């Protein structure tokens, strides 16, 4: 690895230069490794872990739902939607959890990968939610909850810590976003993108970008940074609309859920 010149003994200055050069090369290699680690290796490791814990969480929620549904009419069910009632008024909406990082449910977006799913937690706290190996997707506190009237807004990283929303801008019209909670399955359908400045908090409004207007629609907004380089100078907001609630899992997810057993 080292140069084989100057066996007779180079001067101290040349030796110092050699050491400095080797140090610089070492630092450069470590920075290069860091970039590969950040963009590929760590997201791969973290993403697998996030998918694994999301699968566990999903199974647990399904069992919970089954046990709630099995004693028919014995307990007053939350909302009248146990029979798959699709009237909007019958959609049960869970209360927003009081603490940051409380688990809300599991997000499924088939377009982001056949195995893609992530645990959704309260707040977009970086350490406890977005960077967490057991979460990945966060709910903007104060926005609507799944199925609720208004704007149900969530966020995730595109590059780094699981690459959760790396392919968010590849969503196509009509793609589904499924949210599983302890109450059941909420389905949203993707409608359009908006590319905005990082401070464009108005994409979270009940009527996106129209502040102080109480919306009557049930919307979803997914945000991540854009483009996937550093520093990301913009944000992308993916909007969708609510299409239905069911206590049964969506047919599109059947193959993935079947793998869980």
């Amino acid at each position: 690895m080292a140069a084989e010149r100057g066996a007779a003994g180079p001067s101290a200055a040349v030796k110092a230069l050699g050491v400095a050069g080797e140090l610089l090369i070492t630092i450069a290699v470590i920075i290069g490794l860091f970039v590969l680690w950040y963009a590929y290796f760590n997201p791969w490791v973290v993403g697998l872990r996030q998918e694994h814990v999301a699968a566990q969480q999903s199974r647990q929620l399904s069992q919970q739902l089954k046990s709630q549904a099995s004693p028919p009419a014995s307990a007053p069910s939350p909302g009248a939607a146990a029979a798959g009632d699709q009237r909007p008024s019958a959609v049960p909406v869970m209360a927003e959890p009081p603490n940051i990082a409380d688990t809300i449910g599991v997000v499924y977006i088939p377009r982001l990968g056949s195995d893609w799913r992530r645990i959704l937690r309260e707040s977009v706290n970086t350490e406890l939610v977005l960077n967490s190996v057991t979460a990945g997707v966060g709910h903007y506190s104060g926005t609507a909850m799944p199925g609720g009237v208004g704007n149900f807004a969530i966020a995730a990283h595109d590059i780094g810590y699981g690459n959760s929303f790396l392919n968010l801008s590849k969503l196509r019209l009509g793609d589904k976003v499924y949210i599983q909670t302890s109450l059941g399955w909420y389905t949203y359908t993707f409608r359009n993108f908006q590319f905005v400045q990082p401070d464009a908090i108005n994409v979270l409004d009940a009527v996106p970008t129209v502040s102080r207007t109480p919306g009557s629609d049930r919307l979803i907004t997914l945000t991540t940074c854009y483009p996937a380089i550093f520093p990301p100078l913009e944000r992308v907001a993916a909007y969708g609309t609510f299409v239905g609630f069911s206590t049964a899992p969506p047919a599109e997810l059947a193959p993935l859920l079947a793998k869980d057993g």
Partner: protein
Amino acid sequence: MYRALWRSLPGPVVVRILILALMTAVLLVVLDQWVFPWMAATFVDDQATVGPAS
């Protein structure tokens, strides 16, 4: 630096290479577990959310 390291290692070439491989493995684990997470938290602007810059 690396030449001095190589000279300071004991044993024949095969043993030295094995020791170096082990040292590299340890270095990679240290980087993965501690150094790179710190670099990510310190140097990378990874804001994924809309809102006031934090």
